[in-house]
């Protein structure tokens, strides 16, 4: 079996992604994605493999809309996140599944906390990534965050990036 992608390499990459999000360096975060990337968060009552086509998700961004999401969050008028909430993305249980010469599928468990306005909310789930290597650097081609929650309660919104 080829091992073009090792777990430590993927872990370092995902830990760096988490740090960029917690530091609100969203443009740098966006640069981690390929230009055909997707970022998905299904509704919590959908089957695990439900596609965004024909189903209602919380987030089903293509690369254009990931970029617009970043642009919006950097504005003063993104009121939900202005003033900024404090977040911490914990990434764990990283496993690398199928891999080929140019890409791999990796899975990570996450707990992300968001503190604002006297409330601390936790988002818990697992992220499935497709990661590619482009000109020597790792890039995300897809990130699908499946929430291990029965509903978006009491969080009420996914105004941060998971």
């Amino acid at each position, binding site marked *: 079996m080829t091992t073009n992608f090792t777990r430590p390499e993927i872990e370092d990459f995902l830990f760096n992604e988490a740090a960029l999000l917690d530091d609100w360096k969203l443009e740098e975060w966006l640069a981690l994605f390929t230009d055909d990337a997707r970022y998905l968060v299904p509704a919590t009552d959908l089957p695990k493999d439900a596609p965004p086509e024909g189903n209602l998700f919380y987030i089903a961004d293509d690369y254009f809309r990931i970029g617009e999401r970043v642009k919006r969050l950097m504005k003063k008028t993104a009121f939900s996140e202005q003033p900024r909430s404090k977040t911490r993305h914990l990434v764990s249980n990283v496993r690398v599944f199928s891999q080929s010469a140019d890409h791999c599928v990796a899975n990570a468990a996450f707990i992300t906390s968001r503190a604002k306005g006297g409330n601390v909310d936790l988002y818990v789930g697992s992220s499935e990534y497709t990661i590619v290597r482009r000109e020597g650097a790792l890039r995300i081609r897809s990130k699908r965050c499946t929430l291990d929650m029965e509903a978006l309660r009491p*969080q009420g*919104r996914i105004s941060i990036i998971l």
Partner: protein
Amino acid sequence: MSLLQEKILLRVDQERKLFKVPRVSFTSQEVLEAEREVIFNKCWLYLGHTSEVTKMGQFVTRTVGGRNIVFSRDMENNVNAFLNTCPHRGATVVRDRAGVAKSFQCFYHGWVFGIDGGLKSQPGVESYCESINQNGEVDLPRVPRLEEYRGFWFICFDKEAVSLFDYLGNAREYIDLVVDHSEAGMEVVGGTQEYSIRANWKLLVENSIDGYHAATTHASYLDYLKGTAGALAAVPLKGFGVDLGGGHAVIQYSAPWGRPIAQSIPAWGETGKQDVDRLLAGLTERFGEERARRIALTNRNLLIFPNLIINDIMAITIRTFYPLAPNYQHINGWALAPIGENEWARNNRLENFLEFLGPGGFATPDDVEALQQCQTGYDNAREAAWNDISKGMGREIPAMDDEVQMRAFWTQWNLMLSNSNNQD
């Protein structure tokens, strides 16, 4: 005048054209208890859509008006609504969110009920008297009233309530405008947005039919549309608000965004335009030009008193909510779409929905924030006691960004709570 009635008194000055709502209405536990008693226990409440129970034996469980309800279709093709509690000792009988079943078994002592709610068996039946179920006392309890209007099923906990048809009154016309999108009928799309807001439920009533807040609260969403090539048609944001009576209200308006039925935007290209033209032609054939254009080219944010919103905008959402505390509510949101819509239109519809309507979108999170900021502001209610919803008062035709629709809600709300006090 009772204390509560005094507390919630609206300040309405027809001469000066002022309409003020006391902020204690959003913060008081006593008000919430009164609302449960005289509003949620008396009004028709939205349960679900026909498309969620199309097959015999199909069921959905959900919370409506604080009760756990089983919404199901039985083997005789009747739609039912049961209180999800075992007549024996009270445990919840149906514990799956949704599914298809021939019977329901309570796992506590093993009582079995048919999908029509009738008791089928009890372990140790020989130890019970023969007449234990002679009047159906140990069947799954039915919700007192269940009625449908054009695919929308409602329940009511008041046996004496007027029919749903009469209750909906002038709002029926606006439900018709949604249902008439498609000859094949409408369906709820897979996936429910179940979220919460740390704010009073009446703040979401107001927000869901508020044409005034978009320019500021949703500035970043509007920037997104403006910055996206071809996302906007050359159509102004313009329309009016109507008090439909009974607490129901609506705003109807034209808007520059794309509507899968049926207003195209340049970004949808020639194919999109042809598709939309074809849909509009179909509507014109069915309803004539005037009504077809109303269905296709105007948007509506509709409130069915007390807690159902049907917004027919860049997509269609059904939204309902219920207070768990004065400052906390649960919300369920669904996407409604025409059955048999082509893939292209369905995908555009869902994209539109996600961009604007969902709690992961580019607009709703800012609504959530605004409502929570209002609720926080009400900490000061003792000294700063009044909300103002006077905008457009006295105008013959209030604009879509006036507040007549909110005054309609509050007037009915106040009437119901005040009447209850008079009976004390």
